[in-house]
Structures are given as C-alpha cells and as structure tokens.
C-alpha cells in the first residue's frame, strides 16, 4: 500500500479516537478532508515542525475550522506536538481547542472557525508574501457550505484582483452541510463557473485520489497571475462506511461502540 494511504488511514483513526474522547465535534467534514491534508503536509508543503516560524515556510489555513481534528491529527503526525495529546481535544485546560487557535496550538497558522474568515486571512497572507517577494505558497481549505458566506466572495475578488498566484483555495466539495445537502439549504453550484468568473484558475479533482491531488498542486504552481481553486469532490465521513455521505454525521461524535466499529474498519484497511 502506498504510504500516503497508510498515513491518511492513520489520520482517520486519530480523528475518530479524538472525537469519541471529546464527546462532541465534527467527524464528517474532518474525514472528508483527510486525504487532502495528508497530501499537503506529507508531500507538498515546505514545512518543518523543528523550524515552524521560518518566514519562508508554506502555510496552510483551515478555513473550515470545525474540521479541526483533521488538522490536529495531521500536525501531531507531522511532529508539531505529541499524538498522545489528541484525546485531550475540547477538554478544559487542553491547548486543543474546539476550533483552531493559533495562540495555543503549535503549527496552526490562523485562528479559524467562523466560516469564511480563514479564507479572507489567507488572502492577506498571500499579499504579505507578494509584498516581501517571498516564494512561499498559501493553501486554504474551505467547505462547500462555507461558500455561502459573503466574505468568501469579497476575498475571492481581491485574490484575483491582486493576481495572487501564490494562493490555492481547496474546496472540500462533499455536498453536505448541517441542515441537509447544499442543494436543499442554499445552492452553491455551479462551482467551477463561479470561481472562473471571479478570475480564478479552476481545477476539478477527486479529493480522495492522491494522484489527482498531487497533480493539481503542481498545476496550480504553473499558473501565473491568478490564484487557483481546486474543487475536490469528496465524500463526507469518508473511510467509515456508516458515516459516509450521512448528513447526521456533520456534528455528532461517535459513541464508544461506534468508535470501536469505525476503528475496526479503518484498521482492516491497513492490514
């Protein structure tokens, strides 16, 4: 089995364990983004936990901050803190806050959680990179429901106006949000046409296919003068069959029995 797949599976195990220990949180949208984060942190980004303040590092901002467990799991696996900390998620006194907190958590580049704001901040980071003529790249992950926030389109307009080709927005397009499907709650499609009309280079991929993901990052680098939006088709709850594509698993933590069932399935995958 290729190492990326093993890492992603391990990350999903962390996500399930930490959410079960916390007793609350958002499994669906964390699991859907696991492959994207593994590819970013273990393949793509120039980033080192030993040198985390290096001004030339690549940056990742989790704009869909409620998927915090996917980021925390990745950062722990990448050495920013010990994986044994993960099960303290959401507990009083733990640095692992319910949503990413840059003041408390090593490796978190921006405090997020209020949707749309992380994306807007990532445009600011990209502007900073351009002003300083740095070559670092900024990756930001948005949910598809998040695109309903007005600030997203203010930021999208600004990124293309300022020709921020150092910025990549990845849309975790799992099609579901709290109250139902995007189509039921507030239609966000057509995504490709929307982002293109805002002046972005758009790439559509399978968000669970490592070859696709890697290729899209490479392609984004070759485009000059405009930011890139990667629309990643994903399945909410990916990797745990009873959670997959289920709206109900947006913001509910697994019980102990559900945790055990999920872990058994995930461990079977890497056996």
């Amino acid at each position, binding site marked *: 089995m290729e190492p990326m797949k093993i890492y992603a599976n391990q990350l999903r195990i962390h996500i399930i364990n930490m959410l079960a220990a916390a007793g609350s949180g958002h499994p669906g949208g964390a699991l859907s983004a696991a492959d994207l984060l593994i590819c970013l942190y273990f393949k793509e980004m120039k980033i080192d936990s030993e040198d985390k303040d290096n001004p030339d590092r690549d940056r990742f901002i989790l704009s869909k901050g409620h998927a915090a467990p996917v980021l925390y799991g990745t950062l722990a696996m990448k050495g920013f803190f010990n994986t044994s900390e993960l099960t303290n998620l959401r507990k009083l006194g733990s640095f692992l806050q319910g949503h990413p907190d*840059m003041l408390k958590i090593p490796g978190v580049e921006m405090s997020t959680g*209020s949707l749309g*704001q992380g*994306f*807007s901040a*990532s445009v*600011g980071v990209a502007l900073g990179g351009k002003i300083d003529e740095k070559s670092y790249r900024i990756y930001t992950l948005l949910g598809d429901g998040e695109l309903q926030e007005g600030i997203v389109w203010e930021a999208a307009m600004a990124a293309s106006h300022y020709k921020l080709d150092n910025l990549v927005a990845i849309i975790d397009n799992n099609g579901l949000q709290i109250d139902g499907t995007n189509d039921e709650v507030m239609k966000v499609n057509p995504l490709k046409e929307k982002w293109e009309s805002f002046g972005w280079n758009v790439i559509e991929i399978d968000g669970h296919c490592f070859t696709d993901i890697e290729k899209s990052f490479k392609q984004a680098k070759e485009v000059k003068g405009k930011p890139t939006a990667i629309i990643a088709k994903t399945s909410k709850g990916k990797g745990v069959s009873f959670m997959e594509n289920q709206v109900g698993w947006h913001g509910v933590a697994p019980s102990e029995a559900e945790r055990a069932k999920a872990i058994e399935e995930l461990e079977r995958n890497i056996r």
Partner: protein
Amino acid sequence: MIATRESYGNILIELGKENKDIVVLDADLSKSTKTAGFAKHFPKRFINAGIAEQNLMGMAAGLATTGKIPFASTFAVFATGRAFEIIRNSICYPRLNVKIAATHAGITVGEDGGSHQSIEDIAIMRSLPNMKIIVPADDVETRQAVRAAALIDGPVYLRLGRLGVPPIFDENHTFTFGKGNVLKEGKDITIIGMGLMISKCLKAAELLKQEGISARVINISTIKPIDEELIIQAAKETKRILTVEEHSVIGGLGSAVCDVLSTHYPVQVVKIGMNDTFGESGKPEELLTNYGLTAENIYDTAQKTVNIDI
C-alpha cells in the same frame, strides 16, 4: 483647525518612510480617510479592499501573521459594525497586530446623516478582549497616538473625526498610552472628555470660573485601558464627575468612567453624550448644538451638578 483624520494621513506617510512593515488597507474611502497620501508614496504597501469591509479586516489579519503592521481604515460605522465579527474572531481572538484607524466617528460626519454617524463604536470595541482604544483630541495628539499604536503589539482601535478641531496641545506634549492628562486643575467638579469635545470642555471650564466654580478638565485619550488612577484621584478630590463624549452615553467614555468609579470610589457621575439616539443630517456644529454637545450645555450641567447636595 485640522481634522484628526488629516493628522492620521500625514503621520502615516512619515511612518511608512521609517518602517517598511507598515502596510495600509482601505475600503474605497482613501480620499476621505486620508490614506490616499500613503497610497501615493507607497503603492506597493497600500491595499484597496474595494467596498468590502469584512475582507478589509480579514486581509489585515492575514498580513499581520506575516509580520506586517497593517493599518485598516474605513468609516467607524462600517469598521466596527459591518466588520465586527471579523475584528472579533480574526483580529482580537488571535491577538493579531492590526490597527483599525476608523474615521468619520460621531455625529460631526454631518450632512451624510444618521446612517453614517457612528455613536456606538467605542461601546462595541470596548467589549472585545485584547482590544485597545485611543481617541486623540487634536493634531499633535493624533500624530503621537498613531506612532504609539504602531509600537503596540496587538489590536488597537483609533477613533478619528472628519471635522477640523482646534489645537489642544503644543508640540512639547507627550502622549503616553494609557495615561490621561489634566488640562486644567480644579476642585469643585471634574469634567472628563475625549476627542473633539475637549475644546468645549475647556471653554465650559472658563465659563464656570466666571461663576466662581473651579472645574478640573481631564482629557482621556486612551479609553481602554483607561487611566483608573487619574479618574479615582479626581473623584476623591472633586467629588463630582461630568463626562462628555461625542458618542452614545451607553458603553462609551461615561460608562468606562462609571465602571472604574463604581468599583473603586463611587461618586455621582453625570454623562453628556448621545442619549440613546441616532444622529441626523445637518452641519456638524448645528448637530453638536442640537444634541447638547456644546460648551454651554457642559457649563449648565456642571453648574447644576455642583449645586446638588452630597
């Protein structure tokens, strides 16, 4: 007479020359907020967000994470209203080094009317942890306050006005962040003011003097953290406090003073300000008169307050 927004625009250019980390953002109001001068001198470090105040603040937050010192400017009503939650979650919560320099605060915006006259911005900003608030009174103080804000590591809200204001301080004045100034000594009552109301407070004190009432006048330019010591001392020594602000009496300077005194040294505090009402169109001076923000009303109110038996 020079408006504090003009002083801000002028000092920004000086700061821009001295410190390459200073960047300025605006939301299509650079001619009014006076950031246009900086934009002309340093086009690479000026970012126009367009008419998009939420993204104005979000981008400023992102820039701060890269080591920049962003000054984000727009009208106070949009900065603190439209973009409030971005200031809360992307600037104050992560304690990022963003300076919000909001102009056109208060009713002296004038003819544009109540929709554009911010009377609640201090109340909103005061409630945010990590936020510091400065309301400079004149040109000299504004230039020093903007410099001081640039040196503070963390969020600062600077409240600036559209209307020209007379000089209060000479060039020897030193603005110290967190410290108020006694502009005139007095023992019967203390008038605590801010911003463009200071010249009116001083005039009222002159009128009171003619009546044999000795009024102390204090300029509070740092609203948060406020100079508790100076306020408590005034309460102890003059027993009566009158606050004067071009802002709502709910949550502004008067409330901040009451917060200090109710805890440490309760005395009667009378507030002059916007009495839970929006402004309207009119010439700035007409509006100030209409809403009782005049030397005469300060004088009248102070006189009545002094005559109350305590």
